[in-house]
Structure formats: structure tokens, C-alpha cells
């Protein structure tokens, strides 16, 4: 199969609602997807992943920008002429057709000879491991099987590009793991340039040759998964990747020292004094006696060779409260709840009378550190932590950009 590189040049999509309200779903998207690679397009819900994919497939027309397959500008080419296979989140199998009919359907459209079409259909059915299910209807299949039928249907045209829109999100955790290996295998075997959309960072990291991070329609960072993980370009990327997530502290740079309260976490050279948000990966801590960061351990989880310490944040109040870049989902939820409360007069009255507690008691900020299981640590212990320099990232407090 011919492999091909995809170039997106300043791709922009603006949706216009009836009331003239505009939504910028994708903005100035500018990337190259190397031939024969599997690229994970990653970002939170509503960030424009599907929109990007639909533009590449030709189902949506870009407001601005161009799309190239190889050297050909396909921006104005109809979807069916682009040579793409598309797999949807809900698989979009035709419910009234058998598996075989589903897989054959694209071939019938191009009026392929029956024998040849059958042969092809069986070839790809075998590739994805569903050739024994050819006469079933989609409802008679498990989620994973349906998903493979969808992939077979996308591949059977032998497209130059395979686009997958959150293809695993309808599967249970176990099947998801298994199927993503499968997709990786099929992609390797066919060598087809593949874009894989997901909002699950772990999924993207494990399967992709490269990942592209998106946020609110804007590309944030692109690179090999490990590289992006190790060198996040901004706070959003740092936060989005990694499980357990990165720890964040409000701190400052003072005389080239990185300070959280009175404790020094490390040194930076050539940076002027400023307030910063400090991100430290959980595995970025080590226990060092002479460190100045003294903390109290709340809780200890030991799993296998690692011990996770849940530790009280050294500085109060925690930064989670006001920074626009932190815990925005959580923040939104709270806003929402307050909205609801505002209309409920009974609730207000009861609160005033003190019959209902206004909010649950504030949970103290904690962070996580992963250390060797060799350290025998009990909850309540006071320990001293140091930070591995390459696991610590400093971000501008206002913009979230890397300092």
C-alpha cells in the first residue's frame, strides 16, 4: 500500500450558528503527519479533534487553510476521492446489513467486481480477526468485534490514510487495552498513515509514534510521546499528560532559586525573579536528608516496587484556587453547582437558618510523590524531599508558558 504524508497548513474551522454566533473549533492548525506513522491527536473534549479529522476526511470544509496529501492539495477534493478510511466512535455500522455486506459496501460503491470484492473483504476480515463472523448482523457482535468490523470496512478500500475518531471509547477497560494493541499491529502491518483521535492520554501515549496535543482548537505541542512528556511546552501539556498527574505548586524564582514558600526545590540559571507555577512529576521526587523541603506524609500506597506518598502541600492556600490554568474542569463544576443553588430559594433560606451546611469542609491540598519501595515510610512521618531537576518544570503564572 502506498504510504503518504499529510500536511495541514493553517487549518481553521469556524462554525456559524443560526444566530450568527461563531465557534472557532480549530485554529491555525499547522502540522505534518509523517508517512506510515500512527499519530495520536489528543485533547480534552470539545477541543476540535473530531472537527480536524472531519476536515482531513473532507466531510467538513475548512474555513481557512489547506490540506495536502503528499504533494497534492486535497482541500477541495470530495471525501470519496481522497482515499481515506474513517472509523467512528460509535462505529457507524449499517445495522440492517451483515458484517460481510458492511465490509463490501464501499467496494460496491466503486463497482468492484463481485469476486474480487469478496476476496478483499475476506482478506481484511481475516486481518482484523473477524472472518468467522461474516454473516452476523452488527447487533449480534460484541463492542470489540463491531469495532474491528468498522476498521475492516475502513481498510477494505485500501485507503492511503486511516482516520480513527475515538474508536475505543465505547469499550470496557480490558477490551480497550487489547484493541489498541490490535490497532497498533494492523497499522504496522499495513503501514498506512493513521491519525488516531482520543482524549485519553494514556491511550495516545501507548499507541502513537507521535502525539499532537490540542486545546480549544489550537495545537499545543507535537512530538514523540516520551519527548512531549519529558519536555512539556506549557502548563496545559504538562497537566494533560501523565498518570498520576503532575503536581503543581505556586512558587517563585528568587535569585535563580526555585522557591515554594521557604523551601528551595532547585536552581535555575539566567531566569529573572518572578512568580511561577512549578510542576513536578510524581516520580520527580527523591528522599534526601539535607533537603530544605520538609513535608508530612498523609497516606502511603505501596504497589509493587513503587511507593506512592500522598503528602500535604507545604504552602497554604493551595494554588488550585485562582490560577486560570489549573483544575479548570473542577472549577467549572463548582460554578455550575452554585448557579443551581442560586435559583433555589428554599435552599438559601435553609442555609441562612443553618440547617444545611454550605459546603463540605475544605480538603487540604495534597500532592503525590512516587519513591522506591525501599523507603519504609508511615503515614504521619515527616520526610525531606528533593526534586530531580529534569522532572521539574516552571511555568509563567499568567500565561502558563514554560519559563
Amino acid at each position, binding site marked *: 500500500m502506498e504510504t503518504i504524508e499529510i500536511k495541514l497548513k493553517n487549518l481553521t474551522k469556524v462554525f456559524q450558528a443560526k444566530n450568527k454566533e461563531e465557534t472557532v473549533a480549530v485554529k491555525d492548525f499547522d502540522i505534518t503527519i509523517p508517512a506510515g506513522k500512527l499519530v495520536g491527536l489528543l485533547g480534552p473534549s470539545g477541543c476540535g479533534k473530531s472537527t480536524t479529522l*472531519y476536515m482531513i476526511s*473532507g*466531510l*467538513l*470544509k475548512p474555513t481557512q487553510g489547506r490540506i495536502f496529501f503528499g504533494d497534492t492539495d486535497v482541500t477541495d477534493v*470530495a*471525501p470519496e476521492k481522497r482515499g481515506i478510511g474513517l472509523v467512528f466512535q460509535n462505529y457507524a455500522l449499517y445495522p440492517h446489513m451483515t458484517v460481510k455486506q458492511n465490509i463490501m459496501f464501499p467496494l460496491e460503491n466503486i463497482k468492484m467486481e463481485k469476486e474480487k470484492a469478496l476476496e478483499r473483504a475476506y482478506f481484511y476480515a481475516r486481518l482484523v480477526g473477524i472472518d468467522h463472523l461474516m454473516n452476523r448482523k452488527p447487533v449480534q457482535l460484541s463492542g470489540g468485534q463491531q469495532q474491528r468490523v468498522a476498521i475492516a470496512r475502513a481498510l477494505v478500500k485500501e485507503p492511503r490514510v486511516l482516520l480513527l475518531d475515538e474508536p475505543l471509547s465505547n469499550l470496557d477497560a480490558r477490551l480497550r487495552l487489547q484493541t489498541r494493541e490490535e490497532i497498533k499491529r494492523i497499522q504496522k502491518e499495513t503501514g498506512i498513515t493513521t491519525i488516531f483521535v482520543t482524549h485519553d492520554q494514556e491511550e495516545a501515549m501507548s499507541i502513537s509514534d507521535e502525539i499532537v496535543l490540542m486545546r480549544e482548537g489550537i495545537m499545543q505541542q507535537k512530538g514523540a510521546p516520551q519527548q512531549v512528556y519529558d519536555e512539556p511546552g506549557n502548563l496545559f501539556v504538562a497537566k494533560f499528560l501523565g498518570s498520576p498527574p503532575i503536581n503543581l505548586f505556586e512558587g517563585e524564582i528568587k535569585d535563580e532559586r526555585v522557591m515554594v514558600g521557604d523551601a528551595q526545590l532547585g536552581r535555575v540559571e539566567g531566569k529573572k525573579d518572578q512568580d511561577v507555577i512549578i510542576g513536578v512529576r510524581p516520580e520527580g521526587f527523591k528522599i534526601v536528608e539535607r533537603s530544605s523541603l520538609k513535608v508530612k506524609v498523609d497516606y502511603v500506597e505501596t504497589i509493587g516496587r513503587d511507593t506512592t506518598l500522598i503528602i500535604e502541600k507545604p504552602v497554604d492556600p493551595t494554588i488550585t484556587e485562582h490560577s486560570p490554568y489549573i483544575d479548570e474542569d473542577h472549577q467549572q463544576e463548582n460554578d455550575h453547582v452554585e448557579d443551581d443553588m442560586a435559583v433555589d430559594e428554599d435552599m438559601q433560606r435553609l442555609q441562612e437558618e443553618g440547617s444545611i451546611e454550605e459546603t463540605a469542609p475544605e480538603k487540604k491540598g495534597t500532592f503525590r510523590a512516587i519513591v522506591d519501595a525501599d523507603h519504609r515510610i508511615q503515614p504521619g512521618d515527616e520526610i525531606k524531599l528533593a526534586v530531580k531537576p529534569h522532572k521539574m518544570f516552571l511555568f509563567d503564572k499568567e500565561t502558563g508558558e514554560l519559563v
Partner: protein
Amino acid sequence: MLEDRHDFKAWLYLLPALILLIVFTFYPIINTFMIVFMVDYDFLYGDYTGWTLTGNIQAVLGHRQFWPAIRNTVLIAFVSVPLSVIISLFIAVWLNSIKKLQGAFQTIFFLPYVTNAIAVGLAFAVIFNRDYGLFNYMLSLFGIDPINWVAPGSPWRFSMIALLVFITWNGLAFKIMVFLSGLQSIDKQYYDAARIDSASRSRIFRKITVPLLSPMIAFITITSFIGAFKEYTAIVGMFGEQMGYRGQLITIVGLVYEALGEPYVAGSVSLAASAAIVLFFMTLLLTIFNMWVSKKRVHY
């Protein structure tokens, strides 16, 4: 692409329906309105001798059958609709509360909906026959003398009662079916929750079933009223084309078809159109009134 408009293609798909709608739906609305203002409209050639603002309306208002028609129409609507809505609501609730035989009952209750109103109307006429009908026989068991319900010479009030029985009977099927499907779509959780709160059955009915069903009840009531205003076939089925003894069961729609039945008589098409307009405004008034009420009463 997806969000592109396909004006030409879309209208092409709509074309067959559109042509038929223009000829047989949109144009007639306008034309019927216009006929109301034409003097001596000739239905074959479209000739008319002049314009009149209220002449045809006055003619219909002054028609000797007009006020009886209004009276009958309104009476039919205001008796048969509430009656059939309430009865069918109860039947649906009872039906919904059983498991065994539910399907069988459902099938039986649905029968009147599919069967021919003329054929069933004739059967009702037999049941209401003065001399050997089942109904008079039942009454005779209570010592009531035979009543002439449908045959020539029948007093208006008896004919009307017989007709209302038939119309109510005929209207149950559709409503039972719709209410039942509405009830079945109400989440069982509400009932479970209410039962745990130890609400009594009648309280559950008043506080949960009726409010949750209220949009549907409102909708059914509106459409049933509109339907009852147009009652015609049932009357013809039971009483014949002259609509009861000396036309005593005439309705507005009856007036329309009576006039339309002799289109060559000068002015009769205009009369039909005027009667139809009266019906149109009655319907409109009712729709607006019902919307207003349901906006106030219907929950959510």
C-alpha cells in the same frame, strides 16, 4: 460537503410532494378564502358576478340549518371529548397496571380505530333500533318503554344521545392507545420512589401520572376537539346522508357537504366555503385557547 447547502438537490427531493401540496393543499386554502368573498361563484368555470365582503357569511349565518349545526357541533365536541378522554385515561391506567391479558385487552380496545365507521355506524343503528334493538331491550328490563333513537321521527334529543354514545365509543381506541404508550414511557423509578414514600394509589395517579402525562393529555384534547368539530362520517354511518330525521343532526361539516353535494345550485359553493371558514375559525379559536390553557397547566 456536510454543511454545504444543497438547495437544488433538496427541492428536487421535495418536488413531488411540493407539487401535490401546492395544487391540493396550499392553493385550496387561498382559493377557499377567496370564494367566500365572491358572488355566485361558478365552480366549473370560476366565474363570479362580483365581490362581497360579508354576503356569503351572512348567507351561511342566515341558513336555517346554521344554528342547529353550530349547536350540534359544539354539543358533540363538549360532551364526547371530555367523556372519551377521561374514560380512556382510566382504561389506560388500569390496563397499564396489569400484566396478564394486557395484550388481549389492548387489541380489543383498539378495534374501533381500524374498523369502518360506516359499517360500525350501521351496526349501532341496529342496536338502537326502536323495535328490536339491544339497547331498548336493556332499557325495558328497567321498565322503560321503547324509544325511537335513530329511525325517522326520532326526537332530536334521543338521536343526539345515541349519536354521542357512538362517537364516544369510536373515540376511545385512539386515546387509550396513546395514553397507554405514554404511561409505558414514564420511568418506573418515579413509581418506585413514590411507593417507597408510601404514597397511595390515588395520590400517585394525581401527583405523578397526571402531571407527567399532562402534555399528552393536552395534545390529545386539542386534537380530539378539532376532530369532534369535524364529525361527519360517524353521523352519516349511523343516520344517513341527510344527517338524522329532517337533518336534525346536521353539523358544520355536514353543512359544507350538503352544499357541495349540489354544486350547480347558484351560491352553494360559496355557502360551503363560508361554512368551512366558520369551522376554520372555530378550530383556530380552540387551538389558541387550548395552547393558552396548556401553557398554564401543563407541567414542564
